[in-house]
């Protein structure tokens, strides 16, 4: 088995389990319009874990879990009891207050604790990579039980009852929710649990109705988890944060693709995109003329995609300095990587390094990072100087490009001055299906 597979298979299986239960819960949360209840309950669970941590219970111990669960169930009681407010004050307001107070209280509790900041970071982003088989063995039957209970009670939960019956079913929902969130936050962190809950469910609701929403959500969630874990491994990034960003990107793609399903809306989107690009080009043209030394996001992006753009306005000497700085920046990165590998290898294999050697490597890493930043500074400076020199030409080119991209027919101004109606595609006759 390869290293990657050995490291990632357990977190991936856990991700499937988390996606399965959270997508199901997410659909219910979206239907109830209490989107941020997950964040609030997750933060309450985190507060419980923090209190347990300060009382001396190790992280991920049963004591820590008990505190988290107790705090979450107490919050579930509060949430169920305040559902009736929603006729006068949106319940999201209370949910937001619970989140903010729980977060602030957690900071207060760990204020004087050594490694307190690290503990808070751990609670936010979790560490799904360190999941063990025992975690999976614990949460899988628990989530299955909760899922079956909620499925069985789905009709009663959907019904808007009155009085104590309504309170009881609300409490049942929030309590189930709290049990799941308490366990999930301990494994994956507040942010990733929120992503598991809302994003697959939102995409499911965007593209389908009925039970198909659940299947779409599951498929999307599993795919995003797979991509996130792989990206985290390949680029050596923090797993939790990478997975959250991957889920966010998945929602963005789903949002972009959704209007393109219809040819008419696709045409409208295409025209809108052309207007957007043209405006961005025109704004860039003005910005480079006004402030050539400042950040030029569009030009930077163009150069990233096609370095030839840079070669068009840098002089030969400037290009040589730029290339030289780039080569050295890469060299310093390689040197830093080599030192990191050396230090890592000494920990896992071979002779351990002495304290003096570790300090020396640390100093060299700082120096290499500093020198790499110096080379990046040179690249920015050379580019800024060249852009200042050719700002009017670059501005004019960008303006011409903006004019070329802009869909002039939208303005309906023909060359001969007569106004012509916009060509509209005939609408298809509504079908019975």
């Amino acid at each position, binding site marked *: 088995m390869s290293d990657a597979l050995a490291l990632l298979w357990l977190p991936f299986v856990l991700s499937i389990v988390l996606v399965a239960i959270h997508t199901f819960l997410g659909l219910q949360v979206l239907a109830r319009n209490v989107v941020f209840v997950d964040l609030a309950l997750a933060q309450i669970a985190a507060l419980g874990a923090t209190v347990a941590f300060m009382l001396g219970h190790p992280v991920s111990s049963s004591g820590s879990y008990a505190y988290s669960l107790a705090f979450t169930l107490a919050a579930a009681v509060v949430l169920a009891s305040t559902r009736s407010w929603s006729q006068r004050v949106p319940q999201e307001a209370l949910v937001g207050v619970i989140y903010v107070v729980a977060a602030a209280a957690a900071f207060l509790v760990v204020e004087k604790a050594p490694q307190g900041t690290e503990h808070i970071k751990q609670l936010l982003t979790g560490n799904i990579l360190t999941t063990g088989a025992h975690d999976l063995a614990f949460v899988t039957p628990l989530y299955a039980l909760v899922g079956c209970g909620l499925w069985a009670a789905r009709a009663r939960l959907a019904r808007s009852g009155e009085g104590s019956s309504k309170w009881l079913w609300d409490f049942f929902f929030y309590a189930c929710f709290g049990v799941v969130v308490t366990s999930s936050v301990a494994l994956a962190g507040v942010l990733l649990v929120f992503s598991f809950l809302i994003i697959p469910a939102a995409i499911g609701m965007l593209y389908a109705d009925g039970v198909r929403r659940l299947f779409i959500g599951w498929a999307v969630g599993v795919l995003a988890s797979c991509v996130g874990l792989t990206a985290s491994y390949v680029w050596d990034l923090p797993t939790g944060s990478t997975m959250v960003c991957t889920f966010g990107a998945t929602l963005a793609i789903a949002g972009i693709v959704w209007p393109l399903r219809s040819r008419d809306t696709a045409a409208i989107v295409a025209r809108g995109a052309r207007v957007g690009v043209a405006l961005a080009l025109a704004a860039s043209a003005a910005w480079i003329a006004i402030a050539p030394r400042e950040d030029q996001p569009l030009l930077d992006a163009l150069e990233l995609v096609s370095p030839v753009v840079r070669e068009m306005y840098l002089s030969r000497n400037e290009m040589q300095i730029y290339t030289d700085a780039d080569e050295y920046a890469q*060299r310093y990165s390689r040197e830093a990587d080599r030192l990191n590998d050396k230090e890592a290898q000494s920990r896992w294999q071979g002779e351990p390094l002495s304290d003096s050697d570790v300090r020396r490597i640390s100093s060299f890493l*700082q*120096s290499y990072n500093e020198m790499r930043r110096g080379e990046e*500074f040179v690249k920015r400076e050379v580019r800024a100087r060249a852009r200042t020199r050719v700002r009017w030409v670059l501005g004019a080119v960008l303006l011409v490009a903006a004019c070329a991209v802009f869909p002039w027919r939208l303005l309906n101004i023909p060359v001969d001055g007569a106004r012509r109606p916009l060509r509209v595609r005939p609408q298809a006759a509504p079908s019975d299906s």
Partner: protein
Amino acid sequence: MNKVARVFVSVIVASSATAALGQSVALPGKKMQGKFHLLPATLETTQWGWFNNAQPPVLTVESGDTIMMETMMHSHNQVVPGATIEAIKKLRTDHPGRGPHTLTGPIYVNGAEPGDVLKVKINKIVPRAYATNFNVPGMFGEFPKEYQDGQVKYLYLDWDRKVTEFLPGVLIPIKPFPGTIGVARKEPGQYSSVPPGEYAGNMDIRDLTEGTVLYVPVFVPGALLWSGDSHAAQGNGEVNLTAVETAYRELNVTVEVLKDMKLDMPRIETPKSWITMGFDQDLNKALDQVKAQTGRFLSEQRKLSPDEGAKLMAKVSDCRISQVVNIKKGIHCLSPKSASTKEDMERPTKETARYYVTHAKDADLNKAMDTASMSMIKWLESSKGIARLDAYGLASAAMDCRLGDVSGAEKNVHCLMPKSLWVANAGK
């Protein structure tokens, strides 16, 4: 880029893969007396903060050989927004006695024995295209109590125009020189790279530029030559601790062992002058030392008695305060090679056509230096509208503090700031 430079760049850019130590290379078409050696700066070829005469050499050369070495910057990234003074102090106290410099070397010169003199000719210096100047909050520098806040400035070194724009409209000429270049001490063990001494080291003498020659006494077999703390420019005084700090893509030196010359302190030969120097924690004692060195040099050069030589120093030698921040403060004096001439002795007390000037006198030379240099910093703030940390940094990078009349009870220090630094539309 010439053929030599291309070879060097290709070696050092690839050095991470090979972790190359020094390499000897043959240069086709290059007529040189000795061999040519390339020495990239890597973990294996550099030392951090210590001189230790037991350090195994990274390169062995013969007398007359030329070395093309690369140097690294020393890290200053502890000076970051939000870093507490406690954290920065801890960084230093965790490594007591260690200097901040990353030094390339040591280079073993075959044939060099204790008692000899090592001649190091600076053939060529090519810095990287960037530099920094920074102030460590509340620590180091001439005025740590007054500057409890820190900052880092990145500077682009315009090698075509040989200037760097320190502030909008303020251009400092680039005159690169190695802040630290020296040989091993005779005492065994590890010694901080910060204080200079008879082994040269962290002299921070800005006149040691391309084309000059350093003569340094040898204390151990092979001499063991290091260099680092690479500067693109520096003021005389280096008051905020840092110069225009950079790294060299090429420091090209030729080394030669001189058996006949005897020295107890380093000397520098420039095209027109000889430089003698003195170092001590007390600037008054550094002055005594440089007086003795210069007096001896002048008496040898002009066949005078030591007393006559010392008296002549006041008339012909031009003394500058090299730095006041390296534990041992330094003064260096330029004396003309020609026995019939004298050095530039301009010591204004008021603004001239070329310089903004501050002046102070005190029985204690340390106090005179503090007063004159702080007056210039305050003047830059009030008259030029420069922010206080920028003024501190500019003084460190470009102010020229000169030793004035020291014959009476009070010693004079004159700090000059060239007006030519202020250039309209400098960056355009």
